[in-house]
């Protein structure tokens, strides 16, 4: 008897939960309203069955509960009833399947006027490629992927030279324009998902997959990876910005073509030395870092990381958080480098400075820290030497007090919360797993024992 009452309450409770739930589909921002329609049809059909069958069962349990004087009816089968139930169920199933297949046919068939973009996945980042003015993607090949050629572009394919390479996890799309997103992976399986677009597709190394949609609402939408891709899967985030055609065009123009990335200026260490005089005031003549001035060691840090951080400071992605006292000091300093050439010169000079190990200042238990470091090692390397391909900088042999402060900043959101700081966001996730100051200090004590030095020079 209580079971029947509970069944009824569970049915009613489920309905109430369904209609009251604040957790439901995000507002649609693409053309795929028919996906939502199919879901609604399915809700009605399955909801009816859920309520009807369970209430019937509850009624049966009440009405035919055991009584000593009662006896069950002997009723082995009822072909007529069974046939009706089969027909009824088949009709219900067809009513759900037909619209589903109808909409799927549209999904499979990309409209002719769709523009094409390419989303490139890797552990644990997104980047993008647009076909450029010729409307054709150049050839790519996984075997050509290197630190300098992260897209694996084929230098011999003339189609590729005007391809626009987006070295960022943020893709822009023009509103109301059908777009076919070709999806490719450099390493393992990933998945390109924007909840508001309703569609998603896996990326598979060795092949190019696709999906299409028409963005219909301007805004910024998060891209999530929804196929397990390793230990930082959950931190693999990106964004799609849907905007007007003009803004989109200017965004495209702001990204380099493949030909332009090949023409990147090479640094001149001698010229950089003069520029470095400003930096030396805080970071030291040898780039050794000065704790008293809160300036970290630069010597020995990889070129790609220095380049990235200088760009972040210049773009306001770093050094703009109100509580980032020292970052705010650095930001105007970065501005004194007028152009890419100056940046490259300074980096070339820093790369020429002697890489001496600074004294350890953080006390902790390296044994316990080793355990915490296991997760860090996935990106930063077992020797904390840094891995460019994973956008993870060197930590071994660098100033440990700086490391400590940055970890605290990542943990508290002072660093890594800027919406465009995708790598910082990822580090923020990781820093969250450090429970307290002790664990953080133990970790740094362990990193202080590591010998990995900067492998990637430029």
């Amino acid at each position, binding site marked *: 008897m209580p079971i029947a009452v509970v*069944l009824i309450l*569970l049915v009613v409770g489920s309905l109430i939960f369904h209609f009251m739930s604040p*957790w439901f589909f995000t507002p649609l921002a693409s053309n795929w309203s028919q996906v939502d329609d199919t879901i609604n049809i399915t809700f009605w059909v399955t909801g009816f069955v859920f309520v009807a069958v369970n209430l019937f069962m509850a009624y049966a349990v009440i009405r035919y509960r055991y009584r000593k004087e009662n006896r069950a009816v002997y009723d082995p089968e*009822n072909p007529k009833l069974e046939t009706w139930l089969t027909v009824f169920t088949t009709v219900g199933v067809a009513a759900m399947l037909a619209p589903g297949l109808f909409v799927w046919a549209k*999904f499979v068939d990309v409209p002719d006027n769709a523009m094409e973009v390419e989303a490139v996945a*890797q552990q644990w980042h997104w980047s993008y490629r647009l076909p450029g003015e010729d409307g054709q993607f150049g050839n790519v090949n996984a075997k050509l992927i290197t630190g300098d050629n992260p897209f694996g572009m084929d230098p011999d394919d003339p189609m590729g030279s005007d391809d626009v390479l987006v070295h960022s996890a943020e893709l822009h799309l023009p509103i109301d324009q059908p777009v076919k997103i070709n999806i490719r992976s450099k390493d*393992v399986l990933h998945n390109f*998902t924007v909840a508001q677009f309703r569609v998603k597709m896996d990326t598979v190394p060795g092949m190019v997959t696709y999906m299409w949609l028409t963005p219909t609402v301007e805004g910024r939408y998060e891209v999530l990876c929804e196929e397990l891709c*390793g230990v930082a*899967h959950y931190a693999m985030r990106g964004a799609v910005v849907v905007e007007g055609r003009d803004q989109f065009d200017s965004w495209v123009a702001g990204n380099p073509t493949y030909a332009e990335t090949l023409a990147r200026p090479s640094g001149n260490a001698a010229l950089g030395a003069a520029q470095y005089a400003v930096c030396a005031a805080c970071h030291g003549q040898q780039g050794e870092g000065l704790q008293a001035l809160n300036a970290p060691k630069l010597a020995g840090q990889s070129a790609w990381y220095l380049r990235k951080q200088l760009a972040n400071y210049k773009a306001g992605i770093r050094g703009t958080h109100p509580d980032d006292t020292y970052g705010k000091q650095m930001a105007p300093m970065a501005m004194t480098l007028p152009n890419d050439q100056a940046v490259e010169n300074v980096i070339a000079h820093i790369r020429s400075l002697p890489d001496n190990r600074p004294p350890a200042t953080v006390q902790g238990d390296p044994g316990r820290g080793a355990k915490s470091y296991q997760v860090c090692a996935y990106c930063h390397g077992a020797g904390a030497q840094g891995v460019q391909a994973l956008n993870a900088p060197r930590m071994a042999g660098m100033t440990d007090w700086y490391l400590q402060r940055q970890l605290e900043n990542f943990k508290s959101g002072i660093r890594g919360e800027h919406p465009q700081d995708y790598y910082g966001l990822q580090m923020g996730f990781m820093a969250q797993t450090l429970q307290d100051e002790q664990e953080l200090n133990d970790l740094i004590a362990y990193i202080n024992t590591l010998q990995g030095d900067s492998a990637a020079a430029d």
Partner: protein
Amino acid sequence: MAYVAIADRDHEQHLHDPQTFIEKYIWSQDHKVIAIQYGVTAIFVGVIAMILSVMMRLQLGFPDSFSLINPENYYQFVTMHGMIMVIYLLTALFLGGFGNYLIPLMCGSRDMVFPFMNMLSYWVYLLSVIILLVSLFVPGGATGAGWTLYPPQAISDGTPGESLGIVLMLASLGVFIIAFTMGGLNYVTTVLQARCRGMTLMRMPLSVWGIFVATILGLLAFPALLVSAIMMLLDKLAHTSFFMPAMISAGEQLEHTGGSPILFQHLFWFFGHPEVYIVALPAFGIVSDVLATHARKNIFGYRMMVWAILAIGGLSFIVWAHHMYVSGMNPYFGFFFATTTLIIAVPTALKVYNWVLTLWQGNIHLRVPMLFAIGFIFTFIHGGLTGIFLGNVVIDLPLSDTYFVVAHFHMVMGVSPVLVVFAAIYHWYPKMTGRMFNETLGKWHFWMTLLGTYSIYLPMHYLGFQGVPRRYFAMGNTDFLPESAQALNASITISAIFVALTQLIFFYNMITSLRNGKKADSNPWGATTLEWQTPDTPPKHGNWGHDLPEVHRWAYDYSVPGQEQDFVPQNVPASEVPVGRDHGVHH
């Protein structure tokens, strides 16, 4: 039978009885002892997997509050939890446990036809469990590739346990499949060859039908997993390229070229989908028998139930790629697999109708096994209906890889079969142990488990609608998630801990009742099937004493009109009581 088996001759029988403690309880060839060995081992690893799930839920409910749980451990917990629950608990328990116990007893056999191989099956299974558990403690830890073990990430940098952990996992699966094959061949052969006189196929209890068809599915499906495990081992250890394409890993070019990650997924799900029914069909069968017995009524539409089991079993081999709608496979596959998948809903729905119609006009005893059986119908309806969402290819686009999927398969393949496991344990406990369990504790166990699990999984679907992806260690400040989603996650975690603790009641009841339980009659529920008609409770070695039973009727002669007693055992001759189905009421 035109002859008497040698073992059935009077003076031969005792020679086959086990003599020593070791023969009786350790290296036992008695299907009942092997069943209990399988069952206890499976439940033991199941408890480990449940503890792992609590660890995962702690992180999800209260992110970053426990230093024990970092992303690396989390993914290891996810993987081991899933693999243990699906393979080492549910498959082993339903087939190795209940299959072993019920097939010979329900078919009126003395034992499995190959008792030595049956014993070997258990010990090889135990070996696979040991290899699996060892992988938790090797350098690098267990694999964290997710229970689907998709390459490339399962065997490349960036995934926990990509060196030793995955190798041991694949080895353990290989060993498990060997164990399963030895057991499975036995179950199928026993059903086909060793039924007692009169036990035609269409008189078999549905429990046997479910286990029988599930075993055939297993024998056909597990080889696909075995070859994929072997190929992945070769890719890992011999650097072949079955599944590994040209790719980079942590910035380095790998030597592989030309392999197909999607090929693995096809092989995996060619096994993986039938696997769902390897677990579900025995549950369908068992719950049918529990419902009929405690409702004092024949199972409604027995022939339809048998054909539905066969149809579902057959269809389960042509739906596998519905797990792969967004895998990047040729999207035109979607039309075919969505259609086959939704077709399978029809025989499945008919089974549900027939269970409910079995209750209709019954005389329902709401004892503990019956409560679990009714709870199963409820959770299975829920999980089955959400499966229609995911099977309909276009709805899978937004919902694939979200918590909707997690909620769906836990409802349909976690909670539902486990409720049947409990129904079955309570139902056959008196036969297995000769003791009754504590009814009050059993009821508490039921209520807390049903309500607890529903409060875990109902809300979880809605996190999926919202777009929360599965296999995320943390969500962080994700734009489209309201802050209340975290509160919901915390509540789910509290429910999960509640359900986990609730299981202590079950273990307490089962263990203390062994000693303190009331002595059980040989047939306390008044059931018709043969296992309740044994001369001894628990049945002795050889099950039937001197004479094998002879069957004269189907398994569901409950409340036959004109009979004083409301059940007629299968072995009662038609001369004593007319066979109900032949003379009963037909519409």
